[in-house]
């Protein structure tokens, strides 16, 4: 099956404005999970098509309804905060070149250190701790202020708006209590708008699995089960 046909069947994660038309089912997962039970695809006389194995190379220990898999909030928080910081510098590079990007990175680093009072840790992939990500979101104005003079006013305004919206989202996502339906709907609209806005202003950006999970999976779970924080991995990390 060619990639075009695969896109027709499965859709593209890069197309953020077109949400998945249906949720994956347990039956689909079971079929995909045993695709490579007899060996790797290359060793099979008739290769398993991608629409069947869904890129699952190893059989999971347990298969459950995919809709019951909780988005890993801590990892969403870590991944998207790092991504957002990196995008700020990438925009500078896009506008003014690599040298300007390196120059802009310094004041952003200083702002993180002095205003947000955070610094990278030797774990979490060299990024920031979860609580530091919350602090960065709260002090995002300082991060954006550090880009004044390095970025055009229009793009800087968009960065400020994106950070402000992420700050709202991060607090709702991580709240270990029931979230009213109205708030969940606002979150759903916000994350969708942020994602489409990012793609519009940063056309080179690829949609990562974490971004996709934040835009589609997390709001769906939140609306159905009333909370993400009550089901998240905070207890494991305690």
């Amino acid at each position: 099956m060619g990639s075009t046909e695969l896109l027709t069947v499965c859709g593209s994660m890069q197309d953020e404005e077109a949400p998945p038309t249906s949720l994956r089912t347990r039956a689909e997962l079971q079929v995909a999970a045993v695709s490579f039970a007899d060996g790797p695809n290359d060793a099979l006389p008739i290769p398993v098509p991608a629409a069947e194995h869904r890129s699952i190379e190893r059989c999971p220990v347990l298969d459950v309804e995919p809709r019951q898999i909780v988005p890993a909030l801590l990892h969403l928080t870590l991944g998207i905060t790092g991504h957002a910081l990196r995008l700020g510098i990438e925009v500078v590079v896009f506008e003014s070149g690599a040298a300007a990007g390196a120059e802009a990175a310094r004041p952003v680093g200083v702002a993180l250190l002095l205003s947000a009072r955070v610094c990278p840790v030797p774990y979490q992939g060299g990024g920031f701790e979860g609580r530091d990500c919350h602090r960065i979101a709260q002090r995002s104005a300082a991060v954006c202020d550090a880009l004044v003079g390095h970025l055009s006013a229009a793009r800087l305004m968009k960065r400020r708006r994106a950070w402000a919206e992420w700050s709202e989202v991060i607090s709702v996502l991580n709240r270990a209590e029931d979230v009213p339906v109205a708030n969940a709907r606002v979150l759903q609209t916000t994350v969708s708008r942020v994602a489409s806005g990012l793609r519009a202003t940063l056309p080179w950006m690829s949609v990562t699995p974490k971004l996709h999970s934040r835009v589609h999976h997390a709001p769906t779970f939140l609306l159905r089960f009333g909370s993400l924080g009550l089901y998240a991995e905070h207890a494991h990390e305690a």
Partner: protein
Amino acid sequence: MTQHSLSVATWSALRKAYGGTEGGFAPREVMRAATRAISADPGRQTWTDDRRARLVSLRNALECSLVELVASGQFRERLVRGTDALPVPHTSAYRPTSEAAYALHADHVADVHLCLGLDKGGRGVPTAKLVATIPNQERPMSRESFILLATMPCTSDANADLHEMVGRWMGDLQPLLDSGVSVNGSLRAVHLFQTGDLSF
């Protein structure tokens, strides 16, 4: 001690700091007897070797926690929202069937939510811990609320090693999903959620 998940060592340190029996703490003999009684509880039976530790029975641990939640009045219903975003009330009791495992029960069937996750961490010799949480309570994420099911070395998180680490739990989990758990005298379905760093 059980309510606040205090180890015996922490309890002893606190007892000493507050002056022992003169500070209002129970005598050591009473504490030892109480500790023995707690250890004999089926939900707290553990199995250990030189590298790993785990609770003997997932079902007993879960039911023990549920009994404590009900007895202390902290058990909370968790209703799933329907397509109209309104909570779907539990109107039916759970009846085990011989259908395929993990078939999702209907939203109106009484259930208990159970999150199960594996987390890797630690420097030096990394370890993984298997943790269960019950969202049917006010603060499921607090340290005294979750159930530490097992700890084990995790030098490699390859698929085969994951099977080795958590595979034995799957035998425990299957009957739990098939036959439900008893809560306050009535049978409820188990609504399983996977969470954590390591997908299994």
